[in-house]
């Protein structure tokens, strides 16, 4: 996604002169065109994320629009107090760009993963999370983020290329990917494409409803989603994030308040490193039963029982 991100940035920031890009010494073989285009407005702040985040806050205070880029954990975890005190206390329009949300950095290991990022960041009341699922989403998200009036976190991952049989709906906070019955599956993040593909090719009959969620916190449930839950009241929430502070928990509260009654409520979330073995993003997704096969097995088993 970082290449699509860079391309969208090139298009958008050309017209937005108040935007400024800070990187924590990352972007080799990806952000060079942006560096060239932005000139002085591209700042390599060095390997010093705490400083970088506060510098961005200072620039935003003087009406600039900073984008702060690093590997996801080096922003959300390393510089959390700077995010809280310097950006969020003052509701400044800084976009924190975390590359490699979830297990995105694969065998680089646990220090490079971010399976707690949005749970931690959602503790900040005025910060909004954006989780693109497809490369195409960046074309809509970058222009949107260049005009926000609040802090934001953009969680980038590695999205699969889908063939023409998959019509990716235009970016929106909520999107319906698949029309189905019995089960309603809600996915978030860059693994959505692979799970969508897996479900469609699984031979499940009927297919479940498949929904994609790309913005947090959840402001309101779309009425179509509620209708799907009423007609297909077995909900499965899949996220590349720990359960605590995640979408499943958030949704449970909202559903209780809304009074939507479910038959089943299942969640699949990241467990961490249960085997103390490390590998690619796919390896970790599989170990956490977040891969397409595990999801389909769950649906197969439970759909029979429903």
């Amino acid at each position: 996604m970082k290449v699509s991100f860079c391309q969208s940035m090139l298009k958008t920031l050309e017209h937005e002169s108040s935007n400024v890009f800070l990187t924590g010494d990352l972007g080799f073989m990806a952000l060079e065109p942006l560096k060239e285009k932005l000139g002085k407005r591209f700042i390599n702040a060095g390997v010093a994320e705490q400083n970088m985040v506060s510098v961005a806050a200072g620039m935003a205070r003087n009406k600039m629009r900073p984008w702060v880029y690093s590997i996801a954990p080096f922003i959300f975890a390393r510089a959390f107090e700077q995010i809280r005190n310097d950006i969020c206390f003052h509701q400044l329009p800084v976009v924190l760009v975390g590359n490699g949300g979830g297990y995105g950095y694969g065998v680089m290991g646990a220090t490079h993963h971010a399976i707690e990022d949005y749970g931690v960041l959602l503790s900040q009341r005025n910060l909004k999370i954006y989780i693109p699922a497809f490369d195409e989403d960046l074309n809509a998200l970058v222009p949107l983020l260049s005009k926000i009036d609040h802090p934001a976190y953009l969680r980038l991952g590695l999205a699969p290329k889908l063939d023409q049989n998959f019509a990716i709906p235009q970016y929106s906070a909520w999107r319906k990917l698949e029309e189905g019955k019995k089960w309603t599956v809600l996915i978030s993040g860059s693994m959505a494409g692979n799970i969508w593909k897996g479900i469609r090719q699984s031979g499940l009959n009927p297919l479940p409803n498949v929904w994609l969620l790309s913005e947090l916190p959840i402001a309101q449930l779309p009425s179509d989603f509620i209708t799907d839950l009423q007609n297909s009241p077995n909900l499965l929430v899949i996220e590349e994030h720990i359960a605590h502070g995640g979408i499943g928990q958030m949704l449970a509260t909202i559903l209780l308040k809304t009074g939507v009654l479910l038959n089943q409520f299942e969640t699949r979330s990241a467990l961490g490193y249960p085997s103390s073995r490390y590998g690619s993003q796919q390896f970790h997704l599989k170990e956490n039963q977040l891969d397409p096969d595990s999801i389909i097995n769950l649906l197969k088993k439970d759909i029979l029982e429903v």
Partner: protein
Amino acid sequence: MQDSALPEDSSRKFSLEKTLKLTKLRLLLMHFESKVGHIGGNLSCLDMLVVLYHRIITKDDQFILSKGHSAGALYATLWSLGRIEEQELSHFHRDNTRLSAHPPPTGIDDILFATGSLGHGLSLAAGLAMSKKLLNQSGRVYCLMSDGEWNEGSCWEALIFAKQQQLDNLTVLIDLNGLQGFGTTQEVADLSPLEEKFKCFGIDVVEVDGHDLNVLEKTLSKIQRLTFVVARTIKGKGVSFMENRVEWHYLPLSEEQYHRAVREIQSL
């Protein structure tokens, strides 16, 4: 005892010395009424704040109090300029106040950022200075730091950044009072001589007596590059029983101590 705000044109009406004395008395009253500490560190940097706000800072300039625990000194200084009302100061540190013990994120236009967690201010100031450069805006950014604050690694990140980006519109003042939270700076985490450390990074350093108003004014008005002003100061300056004593980082004033302190300041 001064009990009304100085007029807005006080900088012309009073000498710096007189302004400082009145502000110091008001600061003591504020701490006494509210029964709160942090007086020592307020007195060590009040002279710098008075010089900055009455002689140096213009409407194009910006200021960050990185040593947020000296908010009292900042509030008193803003009072001396008529930017914080007299009655507001009597709410310092109490329920329903705008004046929390550390600078608040909202409510006071002169305060750009909530500080109090050490090691943020220099980065914030660097961000302000950097944006001024990118936007071709005039004016300088001033950042007042403590000496104990340099224990924080993020200060060094900010120093490296400011130097690398050649932030020639940034002036950093360090309140070198030699004391920090639980001991002297030498006992806790010895960075002395701090000015030499800065110089090793290629920073321009000016060393001054942080209580010499004329030297402070002259020095600060001349600076045109990225400069660290290392100001030797005395924690609790002007009150004999407070000077250089670590407990005055925290202690409130008893009635007797307050009156003694007022007498000492008035006799200066």
